[in-house]
């Protein structure tokens, strides 16, 4: 039985629409990944807990509201507390270049800004999934 890459696609924060996240979810499915899609407005605690229960290989976070500097690292932190290792966490959304180094230092493996072709995301996951 072949193993499939499982990806949690989640939207923390309060911004309301998830068009971008859905596009990514569909592209990942078409690349052969199993995507667990959780909808909008989740708390960091809910996202980390869903990642735990679903035993995903990748957590893909999407955020437009500008709270990435607090929310993304918080999710990474809670996942660590729960004993989740070997998960690749990536982020996307409207994120200023200046914030990217800080996010990477906090455990976000890569940040994809709007307009990134979905192939790039897929390639990155395939190359870096643990």
């Amino acid at each position, binding site marked *: *039985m072949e*193993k*499939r890459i499982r990806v949690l696609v989640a939207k923390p924060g309060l911004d309301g629409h998830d068009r971008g996240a859905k596009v990514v*979810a*569909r592209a*990942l*499915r*078409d*690349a*052969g*990944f*199993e*995507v*667990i*899609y*959780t*909808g909008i407005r*989740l708390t960091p*605690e*809910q996202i980390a*807990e*869903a990642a*735990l*229960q*679903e*035993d995903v290989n990748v957590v893909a976070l999407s955020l437009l509201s500008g709270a990435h500097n607090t929310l993304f690292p918080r999710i990474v932190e809670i996942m660590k507390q*729960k*004993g*989740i290792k070997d998960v690749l966490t990536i982020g996307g959304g409207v994120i200023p270049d200046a914030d990217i180094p800080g996010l990477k230092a906090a455990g976000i493996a890569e940040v994809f800004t709007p307009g990134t072709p979905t192939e790039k995301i897929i390639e990155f996951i395939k190359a870096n999934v643990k």
Partner: protein
Amino acid sequence: MDIVAELLNGSKLAISRAITAVENEYGDAVEILQKIYPHTGRAYVIGITGPPGAGKSTLTDKLTKEYRSRGKTVGIIAVDPSSPFSGGAILGDRIRMNELTMDEGVFIRSMATRGSLGGMSRKTAEAVKVLDAAGKDIIFIETVGVGQSEVDIVKAADTTLVVLVPGLGDDIQAIKAGILEIGDVFAINKADRDGVERLHIEIEMMLDLDQNETEWRPKITRTIASQNQGVVELVDSIEEHAAYMVKTGLIQKRRFARTRNEILTMLDEAIQAYLKKKVANSRFEALTEEVSQRKNDPYSAVKSILAEVLK
């Protein structure tokens, strides 16, 4: 980490890893299943099936909350189809269950059907065992009821809830024919829509025709899952069926039949694997060649293979 000891203690990390192991048929999967087996058989398993979009996930969310308020812990396996093209899947059932995520007494796992549905029903049953051994009182299996194989998944259940909705037109006929006979309890969800009366009468009529071997007459409950209406009544009728199963001893019969099936299926697989190991591929090819050239017939070919293997 001693995955078995930890999952028996209810560790969510261990539960999660164990389900991954059975789902991917990792090397340690069989050992895990062997060790947890004595701790299974305690949970009550409820299958939920029906057409896509009927509100199964929304209903599972509400049913779980009702069971939690009755003091039960709950495990949920939500199965969605894999794409036949890419093999990938979008598993979206959790969207309807986000409020359950932080409940310590609930564990939710999404699974894709992947290649073989036969294999899937076994893996679903194994994931149920993991949740059972971890101490969940109630386990829901949600699956889309369209094909026979999805129906097989639900056969791992002690009680099967079939969810239908009004106004699906004639398409529903085929679906209904297939899943009607497995329903122990029915919900007409989206009862806020037109056509509830008609659907209710249709189901009653089909149940009248259904020659069941038992005296159980499935109850039909109207629900509006999105508004949490009819949910208490639905849990009551599930519980009524559960009590009936226990009182009549039917639950043992159903579980015995399931266990028998499980052993036979595993035996089948083991024999196939053994055959593949024993009979060289070249030997098999050569026989096939003979048969296709009419120098031999398939019946004699099978006999000679069996004679070699079983000697």
